[in-house]
């Protein structure tokens, strides 16, 4: 099996990132947006891990950062889901466009 090199991984990361961003930009469902955010984070993770593999001097950092991002994603999901749950309790919907009561 031949070595793939860094580029395909970065391409995958970019693709995932674009998907995530598109998801955030188009979805009205709050859970969908959250999923988009997860995609973006994981795109970054792919990049980190790939770089850890192929870039010298970045081996340890890449893996540590990847772990950090996973923890961050978990925390972010917990907080975001809690917010969404509360929002649902109050408004019986998770449509983010309905969350406009603080608009000045």
């Amino acid at each position, binding site marked *: 099996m031949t070595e793939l090199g860094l580029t395909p991984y970065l391409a995958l990361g970019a693709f995932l990132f674009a998907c995530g*961003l598109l998801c*955030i*930009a*188009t979805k009205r469902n709050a859970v969908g*947006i959250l999923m988009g955010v997860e995609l973006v984070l994981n795109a970054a993770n792919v990049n980190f891990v790939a770089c850890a593999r192929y870039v010298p001097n970045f081996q340890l950092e890449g893996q540590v950062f990847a772990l950090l991002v996973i923890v961050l994603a978990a925390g972010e999901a917990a907080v975001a889901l809690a917010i969404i749950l509360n929002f649902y309790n109050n408004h019986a919907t998770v449509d*983010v*466009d309905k*969350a*406009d009561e*603080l*608009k*000045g």
Partner: protein
Amino acid sequence: MVSWLLANPGRLYVVATLLPLAAAGLLLVGGCLRNLCRPYREDNGLARSVFFFLGGNRPLRAGAYFATGVMALSAVLGIYGLVKFLNDADSRSPIELEQRWAARTTWARVGISDAERPAVTLEVGYRVDHLTALMFAMVAFVSTWIFVFSLGYMADETEERHEDHEAHVTRPGRYGRFFLFLSLFCFSMLNLVIADNLFQVFISWELVGVCSFFLIGFYHERRSAALAANKAFIVNRVGDAGFLIGLALVWTYFGTFNFEEIRSALATSGPPMSHGLFVVAGIGIFLGCVGKSAQFPLHTWLPDAMEGPTPVSALIHAATMVAAGVYLVGRAFPMFSPEVRLVIAYTGTFTLFLAATIALVQTDIKRVLAYSTVSQLGFMMLALGVGGWVAGLLHLLTHAFFKALLFLGSGSVILGCHHEQDLMKMGGLRRRMPVTALTMLVGVLAIAGTPFFSGWYSKDLILSNAMGFGLAHPEHILLFVLPLVTAGMTAFYMFRLWFLAFAGAARADAAWHAHESPWVMTLPLVVLAILSVCVGWGWPPWEPDASYLGRLLERAQPGMVHGLVQPAHAAGWLALVAAAAGVGLAVLMYGTRQIDPAVVRAKAGALYGFLREKWYFDELYDALFVRPVVALAYATARFDKRAVPVEQADAADRTVNVSSLDGVLNALGLGTLSVGRSLRAAQSGFIRGYVTVLLLAAVALVGVLVVVYAGG
């Protein structure tokens, strides 16, 4: 605590300095607490208890007693420190003295330190020498008796509703506030005295200024008092501008504010700047002293400062404030080049003559005393200017006692006559107020320069120094002649005051119904009278040079003073003759009435009016400075103000007109408003909008990077 203090006895002075500040702070906290609790005084609770514990609506006497007690403690510490220091000075080496009686610590670092230039540090510190120790003891002691006197004099401020008969308002009494300011005032002055560097002096200097502002304007409902407070403050600012210039020059060229370091730098290598700048620095520092010590041309504030309560006048004129200027001239003496010293001498001479001529014809008892203070300060400046360092500072110390006595005595008279200050409406008070009359007579004798009274020793020294200077430099003989004449005038106007107030028969109802003041006011008079007599004594007493106080001061004298002037002792006899002539004339005019003052006045003609109106200095300054500034202010206001009625104000606020300040500001405001309004649309609240912007921005940024790096 005691061992900590005695291990390094200079700390006594720090404690004694901080005590009045602590008293002021506690009074301030108490007053604030009481005001905070006032809204809840009807409720049952802690706030109510605190409110009534702190005196309720009625000013609490306890605060004043507390402040007085603290001041007394400070004075005791000061006197104990003086005794201990004098012992030490005799028995210990200079290095040991330096360790025990001086300390300094870094307060702030300025700038970055590198190999070439170490960071410059601002320091706070104290250094006790003979001058500091004597000044400290004097200031604390005199202030304490002024506090005691105030307990009685300000008693009507303890009323819940005090009626101010001059301003026609009824207001709460301000007993506590008065003592708060007094304490703060004393702290500032004591801090100034112990300071070992110019910067600390400057800070205390400004504190003294602001305290005098508060106290002169104590009856701020009276327009005259408010104006006098402003005048004192603003005139002092003029002097302080000069002081700041001096400070900047000293800082730039010496790199330190420490008196000792400046003194040794000057002694070893001379001034580190060009001679011209050295003169400018000296003049600048002296200008600050001119403002504080009310010398010509900045003397106009001091007589107006009489608007404050009489104990404040005593404090300003005797122990604090005006003493600060002379003290600083003495402290910074090595920084004055011969030219600057000549300026100092001439300023002093002109001031002492000017003030004495004005004092001849004033009829307000406090104004006579105020001008006599200005005149005596002129004597001190003259002495310092001609090189009589000891003479000038000795006069500062002796003057403090008899001037405090005279002012407190006049306070007693004013209170006894139910707030009558016009000498023409007094008379015959010596029978109704025997203690006040007698003690005032002591003060008058002392200031007139009667032998064996403290004033004689110092004035004699000043005049012999001035005469010595005049003989050595015949072109400056005026520096001796004017003071000699003025010594006679001093004796005349002080005896005139005493005869008008205390001798003869009462000339108005107020004087008929006068009564002696309570013991709390006469006791300070008696104590100060005793000291006014004997504070200058030495052995043998008929030799003014032998004054013990003077001998002590001599040991603090900067080395460069030696040989500046050779005192001429014949001056003492001439001064006595002049004083005797002055007293004789006063007796003839106001005692036995053999010469009718009205005839003299008629003969003097226009001169009388000229003196009566204080050489028209107020009018001159009014025309030269005040009016143009006020006119400028009105012009600026016209430029700024919109000339429309209130109901059209909204429309006027939206007028864009570049030719007026308002129009320009309107344009700015309206512009900001419209930008904000148009940007508001961008905040839609929809996440996808934000994300799109974010995305586009990121793409644009990457695009820019690509272009820049691909291109470069």
